[in-house]
């Protein structure tokens, strides 16, 4: 009973302290937007009214769900691919100075080249299906994850490493029992950046080719000056980004219960 009450109070507190202010801010934004459009100073083809956008969203949920799902799958597929390659690369780099010196400049080259500049190329190479979108999302994910994985793998406490060496731990034992857990805080910091980036990658890919996904919805709506659809697609993308970020934070809290207090104790 007491437990129930305290958990009710806990939920209440979360609602009051973190959800309420953001909901209030959003409401104010929508009201200001509605008033601004409603007062007639802005034509519909520049900024649609909130009700027009809502009408479009609610009127055709299947449409937005279908395209949103495709973008989400492409983004997450690219994220998984990019993160896997990045973590494997960082693993090799941390064990070999030579590979580190070879791969790091290449990775930097990938990072400094604007993704929008590479996107058309990928379309030519990989066609009009999902492949170029996934690859663009993977490419944009790759760098932050690799740098943080590499830093994380190396950020091990030297006394702990000496303890492992003193009991003659093998390199793979040091990797799996020490380096991988030590790198989790760094990896999650990278994921929080890379997950929204992968959505950007997928959308940019969709701009250049194909007729599926929210990116192509945006391009088509733009060409038709169909503002309510354009706004709806943007809103769905924003909501997707928020949900993904919340999910990553949730995972981080669950897995890194030991971290907030300090990595090394």
């Amino acid at each position, binding site marked *: 009973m007491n437990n129930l009450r305290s958990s009710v109070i806990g939920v209440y507190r979360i609602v009051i302290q973190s959800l309420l202010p953001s909901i209030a801010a959003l409401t104010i934004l929508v009201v200001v937007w509605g008033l601004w459009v409603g007062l007639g100073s802005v034509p519909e083809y520049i900024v649609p009214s909130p009700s027009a956008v809502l009408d479009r969203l609610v009127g055709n949920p299947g449409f937005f769900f279908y395209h949103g799902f495709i973008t989400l799958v492409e983004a997450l597929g690219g994220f998984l691919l990019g993160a896997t390659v990045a973590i494997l690369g960082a693993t090799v780099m941390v064990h070999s100075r030579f590979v580190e010196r070879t791969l790091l400049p290449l990775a930097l080259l990938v990072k400094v080249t604007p993704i929008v500049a590479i996107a058309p190329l990928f379309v030519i190479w990989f066609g009009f299906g999902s492949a170029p979108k996934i690859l663009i999302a993977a490419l944009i994910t790759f760098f932050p994850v690799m740098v943080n994985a590499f830093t994380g793998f190396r950020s091990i*406490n030297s*006394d*702990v490493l*000496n*303890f*492992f*060496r*003193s*009991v*003659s*731990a*093998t390199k793979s*034992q040091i990797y799996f*029992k*020490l380096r991988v*857990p030590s790198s989790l805080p760094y990896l999650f910091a990278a994921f929080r950046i890379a997950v929204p980036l992968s959505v950007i990658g997928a959308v940019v890919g969709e701009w250049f080719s194909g007729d599926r996904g929210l990116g192509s919805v945006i391009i088509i709506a733009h060409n038709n000056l169909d503002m309510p659809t354009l706004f709806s697609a943007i809103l769905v993308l924003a909501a997707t980004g928020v949900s993904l970020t919340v999910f990553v934070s949730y995972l981080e809290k669950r897995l890194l*219960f*030991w*971290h907030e*207090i*300090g*990595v*090394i*104790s």
Partner: protein
Amino acid sequence: MQIKPHISVYGITHFYRRVRPPLFVLTNVCFDVNRGEFISIIGPSGGGKTTLLSIIGGLQTPTKGLVKIDDICPKEAQRRRLLGFVFQDPSLLPWRTVLGNMSLANEIGVSASGKDPRDVLGIVELEQFAEYYPHELSGGMRQKVALARAFAVDPEVLLMDEPLGSLDEITRSGMRYELLRLWNLSRKTVVMVTHSIPEAVILSDRVLIMSARPGQVVSELEIKLPRPRSEDIERSPEFLDYTYCIREALSRATLLDSENGAANE
């Protein structure tokens, strides 16, 4: 009959070549440690004591000289799991429980020759904290776990680098006797680096006094206080004599060093 020493340190000289002129850390350090003897090394900071300890433990290779542990080299002794380490930092893995940290060495080693971690936890009266995470314990308790972990591996030689150095004075004075109690159960051969004169006297059979960099053993003092020792010895006149002797020897060591420095200039 001469008893064969457990650890022999022959003419250890160590310098870093990368800087010009080469930085001499240790010059011609020689001493023996008998089986079951508790030895403390005390000296000014920066005198290469930690370097010496990692050379004895096979974590570093000296520029010149040789260490033998029962006629085998430290690296081989490490492989046979004859060596245990305790560092100033408890160096526990924050994502593992106390018991998980205690059994780490057994997981790494092929042969689990060590003691049951739960039994050793019982000796330091921490068995009810077996499922706690390091961040849920106090600093003193964490260091107790680190000590217990080292004893659980059940090595023949324990190398300790300021094992109580990170604790506050109140916790520290109690922990000295805790360490003494643990050691008394198995009478391992111990080499301990410390900055505390009382600690060296309370714990050791013999104290080696080292000079400032480049470190060398300038004098040694046998502590003939009877064992087992308890808090009472700190009030005995012999205890005060010993601490006074060490303090004298230390100030002579630093004086010697500053004269050397003046001569070099």
